[in-house]
């Protein structure tokens, strides 16, 4: 079996992280509804305040900094809805997180199958 990469690169989304990220995730969960997505787009800062995000979380939302959002308690399931709202695919998000272009990220995945 392959020696897997060490998972220390991964923020484990556990209880304490879920406590830290609750409001952030609640905001992203709201993006299931089209009206919420529109409200966010109309005024991002207001929408973040409505959910009580911390300063750091608001900054990371503004900067579309997925890695930072994960550190601040974001769950990838809800962040995926934020990414979707921005028009990003999971492969775009993969590229953003790993410092690759989407095309490079896709190539990396293809190589994993070889």
């Amino acid at each position, binding site marked *: 079996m392959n020696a897997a990469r060490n998972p220390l690169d991964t923020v484990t989304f556990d209880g304490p992280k879920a406590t830290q990220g609750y409001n952030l995730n609640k905001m992203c969960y709201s993006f299931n509804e089209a009206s919420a997505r529109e409200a966010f787009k109309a005024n991002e800062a207001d929408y973040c305040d409505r959910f009580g995000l911390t300063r750091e979380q608001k900054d990371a939302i503004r900067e579309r900094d997925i890695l930072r959002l994960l550190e601040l308690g974001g769950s990838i399931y809800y962040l*995926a809805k934020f990414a979707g709202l921005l028009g990003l695919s999971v492969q775009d998000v*993969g590229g953003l997180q790993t410092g690759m272009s989407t095309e490079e990220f896709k190539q990396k995945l293809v190589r994993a199958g070889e």
Partner: protein
Amino acid sequence: MAKLIGAVGTSHIPAIGKAMDQGLEQTPYWKDFFDAYPPVRTWLDEQQPDIAVVFYNDHGLSFFLDKKPTYAIGTAPEYTNADEGWGIQPIAPITGETELSWHIVNTLIDDEFDVTVCQELRVDHGLTVPMTLLWPNEQYRKIKVIPVAINCERHPMPKPSRSYKLGQSIGRAIQSWSGDEKVVVLGTGGLSHQLDGARAGFINKEFDLFCMEKLVSDPGALLGYTNADLTEIAGAQGVELAMWLAMRGALEGDVKLLHQNYHIPVSNTGAGLMLLEPA
């Protein structure tokens, strides 16, 4: 008595649904993936199951962290879908089932599984993608579905061995049901993948193939893995193996492998397909 006719393990990646919506099945990226499905569709068409018990995980459509179940089961007459926030095309409602559903709930509670019972539930791509993939052109609407959701999102998650036992209990419930329906069990999701963080895009083909082999011949060999192990070996979302284990638990005992496929990549994921019959 109801008859458990077989089990299907399949990927449930949203991109599959999009590819079908856009008619991309025969494009180079998708051809090898979709070409694996006709044998399973043919088997389903021959067998004509009445009910599908579908193990899946909700990815933040119906369940939020405010009230997140470890295991949830539906007992509703119908299940709706939604766009999930990233513009996937919602599909027409899934047909539900209430009688066997409640019988399974009774069995689970009697077997000391502390399930959350859902009389109303929106199901996400974890359930809808396999339905459209196995029964295209809205043929899925003739199958009655019993959804069983497993927490694969927030740790602590149920132990992989616990999900196998959940499947065993559900298998016994099906086989003790007084109706004469034919039931198929679906395990959806996986296999290795990781969406989040600097390790996004991690896939472990070797481990996936090992799991697929052991799921057939010796599922016990997989029950020692913790979710931390799976995160390390198969990526943070590799914990979706839970649904395959539950599926295999339901079919308990020796099985015959009728068809399988493994394909990389679909989106970020190692995509497995497996069709089993009781031996």
